């Protein structure tokens, strides 16, 4: 379902008809689809080279310990072993170095900082030999007390994990190290006056646990270091130029010594925006003189990569009797694992971003723990902040007797509203998403016994960054479009559609290719929902320069001035009509006579991102005897700006909703008292599978971004923001109990039903 709301830049102007596109907005089968469904597509672990070795990582059994010694002698003498490395084989890093956190995370130096931390790595002829040798590496540890919870990290009496870490943003500057890496504050207006003006004030506490991105494909790499001091790396990632840069930095190599070839990626969701294995594989390969392949087990993926932070929130909102939000206050803490991250800043930015609140205070802390270094996960930090805000908004609506969609409509930000950072919003489609859900048949559908309905919204700002694209026209009029963005969510098809629209040739006459680091210009990571937006802009720019070239060639063939030649429907057209149109293929056939090959690169740092909003509607059925929550109906509306390939926009919406539902109901990292993860596998860490979920009805709202040639906004992340609160609000509606500690596992839900203890730390009040 698509709801199109096409308006020009200012919403005060009358609606304009949506541009009529020939290809954009259609649903061709993706160019890489056949290979994907027949198993021919080559993912990271599918790369095999002659003579390759198998690599294996030795990992810490302790969450925090000093390394007394590492003895690799026995391992090196074992059959088939060709190389062993440890921290001493990498360039030294010191606190304060830009590469310190990543360098120490890749391979422990003097301490292990979480269970699963890499201590050494071996390469051997077979996987079994490598594993046996890894087990024979003798590491002597002196265990240290781990810091495992946000509360412990915030306790000044608990020792700092990093003696060099002082809270950034604290005023006055701290003199003692702390487990709080960063403090972020945002404020506007007079919060106390805002609360005094409210008729109802509600304050609640929330907690969420770390969750993994849950990609099916484990991290894998094959590296081949050659005798000339260079290396080729095959891996899957969300940005192979980033893999090249980070690997080079970790090894102390020049960038040009490393070539990264992107494999197909079996899911990333933010978790593949960083590196774990690549420098190890290169170093092992250089030492052994043979290619080395490394593939993480699922347990390693859980224990040593990702996850998204856990969080602890206290959020207070006030509203007048007409539903107008008057003030907000948020105190937030995010756990980013063992190294600092930007999680708290993003949470502080997003917690009140959807609503036009005159007075607010936000204080967010980022804390470090002896758990794996957190990584980005779709709209980092925003799902947790939305859980808090959207739940309290729901409670306010309930207290005031206002429909929850109407409550949000009365406060939704729109063009010109001032955001948390103090700048005005551009044209956004939040209101349109709310209206799409309000007007959807689902919203008024009857509910059955033990069922409840919840609604929640989410916002993500999206980002631009740098992208490159090269368009090569072939002799027969077909084209190749090479970009540097890995195809994570159908971007090959989207790039081909935009190129087809520009060039006027069939989408299947275009071959979209993801180029390696030596075949296409620099391109930033696919993050921040930027690929279709930014790399799409590079494709459009390249195509428009191709068209300019084609017009010049056609003018030469017609014997007229280029100013007399237009481009329409894939042909050069003489404005005066004195010459027959020249189709693109006729021009490329003569390319050698008119100036040689036609190849153009577009590179840019994309600006003009369009923020995205989503509104989700969830029905659940709660078993009162077991506490099991079943999602029985789910509808998600999201502003895509313009859906280049609607099927893949729907896929992003559905995927984000599914992951958010898992976050709400089941997923969590569970540690024992020593900081050892107890559920590092998909049997015990339960992500939703197809049979757990209903068909998710994706409603594409189209409020075009005026700053993109086709109106694109990013769509990859926003969809994971509302589900936590949508499910929580639905469970509350079904049970009459508010559960604010995720996940809402059966045990927790049953406890809430039986004991109704969840409101003990909360407060609500009425003024007057």
């Amino acid at each position, binding site marked *: 379902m698509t709801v199109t709301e096409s308006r020009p830049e200012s919403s005060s102007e009358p609606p304009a008809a949506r541009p009529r596109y020939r290809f954009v907005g259609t649903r061709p089968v993706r160019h890489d689809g056949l290979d994907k469904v027949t198993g021919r597509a080559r993912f990271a672990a599918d790369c095999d080279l002659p003579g390759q070795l198998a690599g294996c990582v030795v990992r810490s059994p302790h969450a925090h310990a000093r390394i007394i010694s590492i003895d690799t002698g026995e391992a090196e003498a074992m059959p088939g072993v060709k190389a062993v490395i440890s921290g001493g084989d990498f360039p030294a890093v010191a606190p304060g170095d830009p590469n310190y956190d990543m360098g120490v995370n890749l391979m422990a130096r003097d301490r292990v900082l979480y269970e699963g931390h890499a201590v050494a790595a071996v390469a051997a002829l077979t996987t079994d030999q490598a594993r046996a040798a890894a087990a024979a590496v003798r590491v002597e540890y002196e265990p240290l007390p781990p810091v495992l919870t946000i509360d412990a990290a915030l306790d000044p009496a608990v020792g700092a994990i990093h003696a060099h870490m002082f809270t950034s943003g604290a005023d006055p500057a701290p003199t003692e190290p702390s487990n709080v890496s960063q403090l972020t504050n945002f404020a506007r207006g007079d919060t106390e006056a805002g609360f005094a003006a409210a008729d109802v004030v509600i304050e609640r506490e929330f907690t969420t646990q770390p969750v993994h991105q849950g990609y099916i494909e484990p991290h894998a790499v094959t590296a081949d270091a050659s005798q000339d001091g260079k290396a080729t790396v095959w891996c899957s990632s969300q940005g192979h130029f980033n893999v090249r840069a980070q690997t080079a930095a970790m090894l102390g190599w020049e960038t040009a010594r490393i070539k990264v070839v992107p494999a197909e990626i079996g899911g990333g969701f933010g978790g593949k925006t960083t590196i774990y294995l690549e420098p190890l594989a290169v170093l092992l390969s250089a030492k052994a003189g043979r290619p080395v392949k490394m593939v993480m087990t699922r347990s390693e993926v859980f224990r040593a990569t990702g996850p998204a932070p856990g969080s602890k929130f206290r959020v207070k909102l006030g509203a007048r009797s007409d539903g107008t939000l008057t003030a907000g206050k948020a105190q937030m803490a995010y756990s980013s694992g063992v190294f600092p991250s930007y999680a708290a800043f993003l949470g502080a930015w997003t917690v009140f971003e959807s609503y036009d609140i005159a007075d607010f205070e936000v204080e967010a802390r980022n804390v470090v723990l002896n758990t794996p270094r957190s990584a980005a996960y779709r709209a980092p930090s925003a799902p947790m902040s939305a859980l808090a805000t959207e739940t309290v908004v729901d409670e306010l609506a309930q207290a005031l007797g206002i429909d929850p969609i109407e409550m949000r409509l009365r406060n939704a930000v729109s063009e010109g509203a001032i955001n948390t950072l103090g700048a005005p919003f551009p044209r956004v489609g939040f209101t349109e998403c709310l209206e799409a859900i309000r007007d959807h048949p689902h919203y008024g559908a009857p509910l059955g016994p033990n069922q409840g309905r919840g609604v929640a919204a989410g916002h993500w700002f999206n980002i631009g960054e740098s992208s490159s694209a090269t368009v090569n026209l072939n002799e027969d009029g077909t084209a190749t479009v090479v970009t540097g963005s890995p195809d994570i969510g159908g971007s090959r098809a989207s790039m081909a559609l935009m190129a087809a629209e520009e060039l006027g040739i069939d989408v299947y006459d275009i071959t979209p290719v993801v180029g390696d680091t030596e075949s296409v210009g620099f391109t930033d990571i696919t*993050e*921040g929902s930027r690929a279709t937006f930014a790399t799409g802009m590079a494709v459009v720019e390249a195509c428009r320069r191709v068209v300019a070239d084609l017009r010049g060639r056609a003018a030469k063939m017609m014997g007229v001035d280029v100013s007399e030649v237009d481009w329409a429907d894939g042909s050069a057209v003489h404005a005066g009509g004195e010459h027959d149109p020249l189709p693109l293929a006729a021009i490329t056939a003569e390319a050698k006579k008119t100036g040689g090959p036609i190849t153009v690169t577009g590179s840019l740092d994309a600006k003009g991102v369009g923020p995205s909003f989503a509104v989700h509607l969830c029905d659940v059925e709660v078993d009162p005897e077991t506490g099991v929550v079943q999602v029985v109906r789910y509808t998600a509306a999201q502003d895509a700006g313009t859906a280049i390939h609607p099927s893949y926009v729907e896929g992003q919406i559905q995927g984000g909703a599914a992951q958010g539902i898992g976050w709400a109901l089941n997923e969590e990292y569970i540690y024992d008292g020593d900081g050892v993860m107890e559920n590092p596998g998909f049997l015990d860490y339960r992500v939703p599978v197809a049979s757990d979920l209903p068909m998710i009805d994706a409603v594409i709202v189209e409020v075009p971004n005026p700053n993109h040639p086709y109106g694109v906004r990013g769509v990859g992340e926003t969809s994971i923001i509302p589900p936590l609160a949508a499910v929580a609000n639905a469970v509350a509606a079904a049970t009459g109990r508010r559960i604010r500690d995720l996940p809402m596992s059966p045990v927790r839900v049953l406890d809430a039903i039986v004991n109704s203890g969840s409101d003990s730390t909360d407060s609500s009040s009425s003024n007057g």
Partner: protein
Amino acid sequence: MTVRVHFSSDLRRLTGGLTEVEVADPGATVKALVANLDGRFPGLGERLSAGTAVMLDGEVIAHPDYEPVADGSEVYFIHQPSGG
């Protein structure tokens, strides 16, 4: 020409607690503005050169050095935005 500059919390200890300042004659670009600010708040220039983005008149710019500033511009120095 005057621009208004806003500081996030982690910059305020370098600005003596100021949350925003008006800068007259800030120069033509963000880079010139940063140099101007460093003269007023020693150390701020080095801090802002280390991967800080700006929101300039409502647009988040990850690499802002050569972005032009205009009379009345609103500039926020923020963490590099990122995503998943």
